[in-house]
């Protein structure tokens, strides 16, 4: 019961902060509320014993990526006149929500109707670095190497994109 109430609390925080994230006018507000979202998602990870992913989420997302965003926002010195003119932002948000609503509704309905949970017994080791690491280097070694190449490509791409003269 305890974990249930924690889940609902975290879910509420996640949803509210993400709604704030997409509707805030200034990017800095969005970024700050997005940090809240990410941290509460990390907490949700921890709730199901995925301790390693919890750490990764906190370090990479909340730590690295979001601070990079904040850094960029501040580095660019964005003023209000640099922001896009989003006069009809609320109508857009409302309209798109109406379009997406049936999609969400159908998916939720399907999830509720189907009985997909296995409820397998979780071992003591689950979610630890050892467990994840063994799986990664055992079954997923090729994707892992490919991701390393992807990171390299992205690195070079970022450098080339942001060079002063193209």
């Amino acid at each position: 019961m305890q974990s249930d109430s924690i889940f609902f609390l975290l879910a509420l925080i996640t949803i509210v902060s993400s709604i704030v994230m997409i509707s805030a006018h200034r990017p800095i507000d969005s970024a700050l509320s997005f940090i809240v979202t990410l941290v509460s998602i990390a907490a949700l990870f921890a709730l199901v014993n995925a301790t390693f992913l919890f750490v990764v989420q906190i370090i990479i997302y909340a730590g690295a990526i979001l601070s990079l965003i904040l850094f960029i926002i501040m580095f660019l010195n964005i003023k209000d006149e640099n922001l896009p003119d989003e006069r009809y932002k609320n109508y857009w948000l409302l309209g798109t929500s109406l379009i997406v609503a049936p999609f969400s509704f159908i998916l939720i309905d399907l999830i509720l109707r189907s009985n997909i949970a296995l409820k397998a017994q979780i071992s003591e080791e689950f979610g630890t670095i050892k467990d994840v690491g063994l799986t990664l280097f055992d079954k997923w070694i090729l994707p892992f190497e490919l991701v390393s190449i992807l990171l390299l490509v992205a690195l070079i791409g970022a450098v080339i994109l942001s060079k002063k003269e193209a």
Partner: protein
Amino acid sequence: MLEKYMILSIILFSIGIVGLISRRNIIVIYMSIELLLNAVNLSLIAISADTADASAQVVSMLIIAITASEAALFMALFVVLFRNKASLDVNLFDILGNKR
């Protein structure tokens, strides 16, 4: 537990889509995309916990790695867009369409 996580994941995903389509600010769009990926990660972790198998966690981790590379590219894009147009408006990125 799995169903709750899935429903939360769907809700987050929908919010991400709404943000992705409705907003013109490229930074918010980027964060919406991150939200989509996080929603997927959430469901993956839930599945992993439900099946007691670490593979889904590994996939989730790979997604995070891809997110990181995406982040690097997006940061470069922000810089370029802002330098060239002095604005964060994605509507300025429309050379794909017909110029009138």
